[in-house]
């Protein structure tokens, strides 16, 4: 077993542990902190897949911005008892275990039993430059639509969170 394999196993284990922590913790603040760890674990997986730019984007946007947004929202909507703030329903737990177990089992079986041929090792010399050229070249319309989507999402989020105006004129 080489050092690369060991790194993968450790980071995969940490990521799965943190993901389980997100869905199992009784305290939702702990869930959010486990979510940050899970994002960082996924970022290290990106680094191992030679997607360094995506790894940095993951750390900045997910671990930096989205998790802070989630923690702020938790602070705004927290109930009276934080230790029981993340309950699970009995019926939902049963359905969730069955559905998630079945999904994971079936997809794992199909992944393991598939005969992966023609696998390559895609070594990229300049991935960031390629990404930039694709974003500004073939995919420029998708890029602009994504920009408009983000703008609309920001404006919409502000309007929704601000609440209806109570005007009496």
């Amino acid at each position, binding site marked *: 077993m080489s050092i690369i394999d060991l790194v993968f196993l450790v980071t995969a284990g940490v990521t799965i542990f943190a993901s389980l922590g997100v869905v199992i913790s009784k305290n939702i603040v702990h869930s*959010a902190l486990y979510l940050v760890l899970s994002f960082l674990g996924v970022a290290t997986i990106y680094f191992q897949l030679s997607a360094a730019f995506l790894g940095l984007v993951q750390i900045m946007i997910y671990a930096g911005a989205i998790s802070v947004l989630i923690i702020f*929202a938790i602070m705004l909507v927290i109930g009276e008892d934080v230790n029981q703030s993340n309950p699970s329903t009995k019926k939902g737990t049963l359905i969730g275990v069955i559905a998630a177990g079945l999904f994971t089992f079936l997809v794992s079986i199909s992944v393991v039993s598939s005969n992966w041929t023609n696998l390559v090792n895609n070594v990229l010399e300049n991935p960031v430059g390629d990404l930039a050229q694709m974003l500004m070249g073939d995919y420029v319309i998708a890029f602009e639509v994504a920009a408009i989507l983000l703008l609309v999402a920001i404006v919409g989020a502000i309007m929704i969170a601000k609440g209806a105006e109570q005007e009496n004129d």
Partner: protein
Amino acid sequence: MISFEHYLLLSTIIFGIGLYGILARKNAVAVLMSLELMLNAVNINFIAINKFVITGGVTGQLFAIFVIVVAAAEVAVGLALIISIFRQKKSVNLNDFNLLKW
């Protein structure tokens, strides 16, 4: 030796955990967090396929960027909705989110 299958298995497990979280949790914020886990699993798949299936090009990474953009937009709007509903209902329990039911 770590190969393509291991990355697919990892993303399958994370997706399954997220699926469990969406179905089992009652807190709306926890459901959004589980959704983020599922989107992350999809991104691992995109980038693994970019590494092991296509020769040259970064199409998989490009799609992962678009997934991240949509996830950021979705979580912002979702949390705004949760805050707005919390102001009326004083609860983030999904069982209380029955405004559209009769």
